[in-house]
């Protein structure tokens, strides 16, 4: 029953999306004006129905209703409840349902709260949102129905993959999805603004909180994903430039650029066409990234990994949505009047540079991700990795850091370098000190060297905007900016330090023997078998001592699962304020010695700490903007209220 209820809710939601699209579009014409009142309520109900469908899916997963095919294929009655629930979105159909649910809810929320934009722009925005949603509803209902029944129902489900029973993995994808789909609102705002030719500060202010919220989720999602890969894969690496990672990085880069250009448009009414363009690009990157990952086209070419029907369907959706939006942009961009002028040396100028650099990095990542496909079309098989991505993105990342240090100190409209020169003395001093320290330590490669030195300068420069300010009266968004920029310095320091100072050791030792890695002395005490609920493992007991201080126990495992048969290594981590010890247990050599892989990675946790600081900066900015929006709304209502009373 619950499954049928969910399916019905999904069909109704799709029908309402169609109604929202048609009513929104007709209401823009003179004869359809009467329909304008329908659009907002329909958008709200559509969102609620999508939520109901998603709730139904979670219910059938929670009670393991094996007569639902999706549950039978992806769940198991023995799973802990939390993983049963997470199983609802841990598969293709469920994740697409989550996608439309978030889209519908976001659209409904916009319809409820957004009152600043002119009504026609709102109607066009909601119609745009409905149009995109409708495509995904069609995809769900036609090609990936999550509520399909299975008859006869199997006695047990076949989804007890223990590797996926990891809390980080259960909540990482939905976090990214919130980010991806949050950008759909920016996309729809861009469509609405283009259709009604209302690109201006009001549009930017309406769009900004959505971009900010989506960007926060993307930042958290990418940070968490990177940490997960680091501790779970047992390679000691934290970023692999893998297509899945790039798929999340590309929307983040576009959203970061959009966030900054939104600021320019809201404050100075400049960069109009560019901001609209980025609004389209950011969500397009989300869709392209999801498509590349879901279709499997990058890993397998001679048959769609998922299956051909779905892949072609998503590609068609992409072509219609993105192609349509870009065509609309091409037709309307020429009529979007130019915004306010500014000099190259100004806050706007710096933000334009930031946007150019971010777009360039985005282009590099996109090209690198697609290159294997391009090469294969030409008849060669290649894979693209860090040797391409690292130096190529550094070409633009390094100057961007300089702009990032200087930009926030510049005034709007026009400024001179002479004015800010004195203020830059402090960061320059930090850079020089950094150079001296790194040279004293010894041999460091070019990129990590640049990273360390620039991180030092940026850390100092990022807090400079707080100078000469009354800290208590400094608006929250400024705090947010400072924190986020400081977070970039922290993360950069972690990355450069990891790359420059990591010590790796691969040894074979007998129990009772001691080996050294960096400042650590590690003694292998014993290797013993242990058993878990659905695995057995060999567990090493090691005693690690930092500079011969007190010992701490480490227990890395080499696990064997039997459903499905698979071996994993559970690395053991030991975190200190100045770095992390990373231990992996390998196999047993023939002579009774054990292979150990040990890393000492100075300051590596800074990478993720920095990521979280960046996200926290976003949260502060969002809180500040929302609070001032609410204050402004309340004030306007008060004025309106007084006027009506005086009128009487």
């Amino acid at each position, binding site marked *: 029953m619950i499954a049928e209820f969910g399916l019905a809710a999904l069909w109704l939601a799709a029908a309402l999306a169609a109604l929202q699209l048609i009513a929104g579009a007709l209401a823009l014409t003179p004869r359809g004006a009467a329909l304008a009142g329908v659009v907002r309520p329909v958008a709200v109900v559509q969102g609620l129905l999508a939520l109901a469908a998603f709730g139904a899916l979670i219910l059938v997963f929670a009670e393991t209703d094996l007569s639902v095919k999706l549950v039978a294929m992806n769940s198991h009655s023995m799973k802990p409840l939390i993983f049963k629930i997470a199983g609802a979105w841990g598969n293709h159909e469920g994740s697409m349902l989550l996608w439309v649910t978030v889209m519908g809810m976001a659209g409904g929320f916009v319809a409820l709260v957004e009152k600043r934009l002119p009504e026609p722009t709102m109607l066009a925005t909601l119609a745009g949102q409905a149009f995109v949603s409708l495509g995904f509803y069609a995809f769900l209902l036609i090609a990936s129905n999550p509520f399909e029944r299975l008859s006869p129902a199997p006695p047990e489900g076949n989804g007890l993959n223990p590797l996926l029973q990891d809390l980080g993995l259960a909540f990482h994808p939905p976090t990214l999805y919130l980010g991806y789909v949050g950008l759909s609102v920016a996309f729809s705002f861009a469509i609405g603004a283009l259709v009604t030719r209302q690109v201006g500060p009001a549009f930017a202010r309406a769009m900004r909180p959505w971009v900010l919220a989506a960007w926060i989720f993307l930042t958290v999602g990418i940070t968490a994903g990177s940490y997960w890969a680091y501790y779970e894969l047992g390679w000691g690496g934290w970023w692999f430039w893998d297509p899945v990672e790039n798929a999340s990085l590309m929307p983040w880069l576009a959203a970061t650029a959009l966030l900054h250009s939104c600021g320019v448009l809201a404050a100075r009414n400049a960069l109009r066409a560019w901001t609209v363009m980025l609004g389209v690009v950011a969500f397009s990157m989300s869709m392209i990234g999801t498509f590349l990952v879901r279709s499997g086209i990058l890993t397998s070419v001679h048959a769609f990994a998922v299956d051909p029907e779905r892949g072609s369907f998503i590609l068609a959706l992409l072509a219609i949505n993105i192609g349509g939006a870009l065509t609309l*942009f091409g037709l309307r961009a020429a009529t979007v009047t130019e915004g306010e002028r500014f000099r190259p040396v100004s806050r706007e100028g710096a933000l334009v540079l930031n946007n150019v650099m971010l777009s360039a990095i985005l282009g590099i990542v996109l090209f690198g991700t697609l290159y294997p496909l391009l090469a294969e079309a030409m008849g060669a098989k290649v894979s693209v990795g860090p040797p391409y991505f690292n130096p190529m993105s550094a070409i633009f990342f390094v100057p961007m850091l300089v702009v990032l240090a200087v930009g926030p100190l510049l005034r709007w409209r026009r400024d001179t370098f002479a004015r800010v020169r004195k203020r830059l003395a402090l960061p320059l001093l930090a850079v020089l000190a950094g150079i001296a320290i790194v040279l004293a330590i010894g041999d460091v490669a070019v990129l990590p060297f640049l990273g360390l030195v620039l991180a030092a300068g940026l850390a100092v420069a990022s807090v400079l905007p707080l100078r000469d300010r009354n800290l208590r009266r400094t608006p929250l968004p400024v705090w947010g900016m400072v924190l986020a920029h400081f977070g970039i310095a922290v993360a950069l320091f972690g990355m450069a330090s990891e790359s420059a100072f990591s010590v790796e050791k691969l040894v074979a030792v007998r129990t009772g023997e001691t080996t050294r890695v960096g400042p650590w002395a590690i003694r292998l005490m014993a290797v013993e078998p242990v058993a878990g609920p659905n695995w057995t493992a060999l567990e090493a007991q090691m005693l690690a001592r930092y500079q011969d201080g007190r010992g701490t126990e480490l227990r890395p495992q080499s696990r064997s699962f039997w459903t499905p*048969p698979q071996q994993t290594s559970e690395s053991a981590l030991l975190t200190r304020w100045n770095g992390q010890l990373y231990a992996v247990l390998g196999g047993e050599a023939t002579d009774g010695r054990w292979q150990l892989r040990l890393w000492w990675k100075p300051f590596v946790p800074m990478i993720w700490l920095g990521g979280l600081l960046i996200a926290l900066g976003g949260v502060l900015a969002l809180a500040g903007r929302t609070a001032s929006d609410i204050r402004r709304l309340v004030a306007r209502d008060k004025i309106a209220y007084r006027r009506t009373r005086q009128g009487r």
Partner: protein
Amino acid sequence: MTEQTRKTSRWTIWLPLALFAAFVVLVLIGLFRPAGRDVASTLIGKPLPAFDLPPALPERPGLASTAFGKGQPRLLNIFASWCIPCRVEAPQLDRLKRMGVPIDAISVRDRPEDLRGFLAQNGDPFQSIGADDDGKVQLALGSSGVPETYVIDGKGTIRYQHIGEIRPEHLPLILEKLKEAGR
């Protein structure tokens, strides 16, 4: 901003659309291009990875890696009922079966009812069929698509990987590889 950007803006506004169109074309080429046949698998000469797959059809046995390496070379075919080239390949597999070559199969992301239809229509040369519902075993075998066929020798070592469908003109090649594996 400056005069120059204003002049160039007419064609630059269509640039994103052009780039996107190029992306779509690229993906379409990728989708419909036949498989490259020059890929030499790194698994050749290595033992067959261990796996144990449930039956793809409830009435038939499943497939485990232990079925191989019992002295006689065997073929391992990876296919799916939704895969069109697999239909093209079916008559060749049938001929191999009639020549006495033992063939096992792994069906990838399939449904029993679809699979039954496929076998009824295209012939059924397989001794056992394992169901690989999430493609994990396929991946472990170094196979990235369907159909693919492996020659496994009597010791359980992978001797040859055939990517794409076996066409009639490939039959001598397959038989040659089987003979080599039998030595």
